[in-house]
């Protein structure tokens, strides 16, 4: 039996189904999922766009390339012809998907193609790091809350140590160290510049933010009658944890997923912007903003486009997270849903 299951409710429909139905009726979830779906689709078609539409290699510098725009051959990096004739400016947005739709960056690379590839890295790192955080937090929270005593003290102090460092300070420090040396954990080895490093780093630094609330919840559940009854009946610890306690903390975990995804994505972008996340020539939205920083005066689109995508994605994830939370909370459901 779940504690979210009031005694008076008919057991014809599970809380999960009710939550899904509520979610399906929530406009916020549709809007956010639509935006996320479009972004995901764009990320998925990145290789097709680069090879078959833009006909470009988004990771290769093409400083001497030329393109034909409206029958006129133009250099991708155009030299100035005004004043003292100083400087080179990347070509701006042409509006044509086949030829620098959003213009070029300072290496002569197609910004649109890099944006799509950047989406793949940013979303992949965001999702992966969020899952690392959630899974490890769940494990720590369940063990600490259920075992209590010495085990709880050790794990809680460990969380306190990580908690003591500001997230960005810790992630920047870890990135700077691991980026050049790589990371070896037994048989697992992440080489310098590996995309697994930001996943690991971001996944670790957010653990206290999820593990502590879960631990608190487990501590409270541990004292509930149905858990005591299970203990009294001689059920195994694993049975109690996975069959009695875990189902009751899952709603909280589900709410955490989109929020942690958004946070992980923002952190990845920040690290990549600081050149300590995804390494060139690979792209993420953060690295593209970094590339665009040097072009703010002439080609602001290079920095603005990934910035806009980050805002859209983060806002959508937060909106979806709110909708999930409301869907799982009986108090916020419309009358007649529970």
């Amino acid at each position, binding site marked *: 039996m779940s504690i979210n299951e009031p005694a008076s409710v008919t057991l014809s429909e599970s809380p999960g189904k009710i939550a899904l139905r509520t979610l399906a009726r929530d406009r916020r979830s549709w809007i956010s999922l639509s935006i996320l779906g479009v972004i995901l689709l764009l990320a998925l078609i990145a290789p097709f766009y680069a090879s078959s539409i833009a006909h470009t290699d988004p*990771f*290769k*510098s093409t*400083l*001497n390339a030329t393109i034909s725009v409206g029958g006129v051959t133009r250099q991708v*990096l155009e*030299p*100035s012809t*005004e*004043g*003292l*004739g*100083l*400087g*080179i*400016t990347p070509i701006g947005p042409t509006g044509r998907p086949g030829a620098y739709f959003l213009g070029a960056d*300072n*290496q002569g690379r197609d910004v649109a193609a890099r944006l799509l590839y950047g989406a793949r890295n940013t979303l992949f790192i965001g999702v992966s790091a969020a899952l690392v955080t959630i899974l490890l937090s769940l494990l720590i929270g369940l063990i600490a809350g259920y075992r209590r005593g010495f085990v709880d003290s050790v794990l809680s102090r460990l969380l306190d140590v990580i908690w003591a460092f500001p997230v960005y300070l810790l992630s920047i420090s870890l990135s700077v160290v691991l980026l*050049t040396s790589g990371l070896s954990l037994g048989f697992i080895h992440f080489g*310098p*510049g590996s995309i697994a490093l930001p996943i690991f780093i971001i996944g670790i630094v957010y653990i206290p933010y999820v593990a502590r609330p879960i631990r608190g919840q487990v501590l409270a559940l541990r004292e509930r009658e149905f858990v005591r009854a299970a203990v009294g009946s001689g059920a195994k610890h694993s049975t109690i944890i996975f069959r009695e306690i875990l189902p009751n903390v899952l709603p909280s975990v589900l709410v955490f997923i989109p929020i942690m995804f958004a946070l992980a994505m923002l952190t990845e972008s920040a690290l990549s912007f600081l*050149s300590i996340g995804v*390494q*060139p*020539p690979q792209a993420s939205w953060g690295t593209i903003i970094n590339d665009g*920083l*040097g*072009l*703010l*005066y*002439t*080609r602001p689109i290079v920095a603005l486009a990934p910035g806009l995508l980050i805002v859209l994605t983060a806002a959508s994830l937060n909106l979806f997270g709110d909708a999930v939370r409301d869907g799982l909370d009986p108090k916020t459901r419309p009358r007649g849903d529970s």
Partner: protein
Amino acid sequence: MRKRPLHLASVLAVATLLLSACSGSSDSASTSTGGSSFGAYEKDKAGGIVTFVASAAGGTLDPKVNYTAQYWQLYQASYDGLLGFKYADDAGSFEIVPNLAEALPEVSNDGKTLTFKLRKGIKFSDGSDVTVNDVKASFERIFKVLSPTAGGFYNGIVGADACLKAPATCKLDQGVVVDAATNSVVLNLVAADETIQSKLAVPHAAINPANAPAKDAGTTIIPTTGPYMYKSYDPNKELIMVRNPYFKEWSHDAQPQGYPDEIHFKFGLTATAQVTAVQNDQANWMFDPIPSDRLNEIGTKYADQVHIQPLTAMWYLPMNVNLAPFNNVKARQAVNYALDRAAMVKIFGGEKLAAPVCSFLPPGFPGHVDYCQYTAGGSVESPASAWSAPDIEMAKKLVEESGTKGQKVGIVVSDDEVNKQMGEYIQSVLTEIGYKATLKPISGNIQFTYIQNTNNKVQISLSQWYQDYPAASDFLYILLSCGSFTPGSDSSINMAGYCNKGLDAKMQKAMTLGLTDAAAANKMWGDIDKEVMADAPVAVAFTPKQVDFISKGTKNYHFSKQYKMFVSQLQVK
């Protein structure tokens, strides 16, 4: 030097050569006046604070260790040697004039003995007198602190060999003989050196107090003799220079009185922020290369504040010949073939600001020969006359033949915008020809010394070299001789770790020949250039021009080919 080393040629030969080769060389809105020394000091224009901005500090403040153009520019207004380069515009600035010495040295013993007389009455900025003992101690200190040019510039002093072997106990009793009674300094050389006077005029030969630390002083301030002294130095924030209260002008040519009361050098601004600061008159001058996206704006809206000066310099990629994959000559040649120098020129700001090259000695430099082995249509055996385009297919073929395909290569660059862009381009090229290239941008504050130290196992890096003095040895001998390679040291200017004893001997021969037959020596240097580049320990990319962007309120801009802009002569009042 940005990085740079210096090198000398005989004074008259240099002056003659440069006056003919470089006259009218400033091609900007600059107000260069020719090779004459400056006019009389205008006291009513003195005062105010001059502010410079840079993305990072230039490393140690020790004048015997620092080898960056960033600080040599400042040392000119603060530290003095027995000789100095003249305060004059353009080619006139290569003229060597007596500085702390009363006159140019009396040369005897077939060029192996130079006798100076130290000026009297000069004080360090801490109030102590400059004595001949300070002079002797300063020469010994070159070796004690492992100056990057100890083995390249000053190894010809009698006793230098022992000092190079045991720096901590360096004594030059036979090499530098001083007499306090007569204030004389006698410099004894093992052999005549055509460039010794230039070597005595650079900051590494500056006279420091005898009690200066016997190790790299780092951020510790060493008293100066020039018009400015250092008040404070925080490499993460700011360097402040103030007037030296004990300075009295002793030679208007060598060390004239300065105009600003203080010179502040602020660190930590991006190049873009530096441009904005100069535009808004919040800074008088910016050190870093101007970002390419601001050049057009500056070249149109601020053209009258821009000074473009030709330089004898190069941007190049030292490749560590002692580490894989570049311990294989074919791998190094592959990089040379693959490099699109025109692309790098674009990143630097376009054809108005740089030109592709692939010979080691820059165009217009003594010994330079127009040739390019690593270009489309060229080869080591049959070089083209100039670089025209990269040859990627040849590069890929050489990588295959070298058996190094697929190896990991780390590229170390400074983390300013232009260098990072260059690095990203190089990474793209190395990836294209078959390597797994990674880019390692590190602070400009440490990059130059980092890439010199073999302990850091740098495989390939991006660096710059600006002439110290117009002689081929300043490039070839300083950068690629065995004597300039000191494993495990931050002061190992031969970053490629290239040591070819046969070529070393030829370089020595060319330097000796230069004493009697400059033309023959230069021809020999041209041949050495080709031989060196056949081994390809470096890939030369382009020769840059200096773009000085100064604020509207900054006056009296003068440019020295030796030290670039004269910082002490700027007027802000």
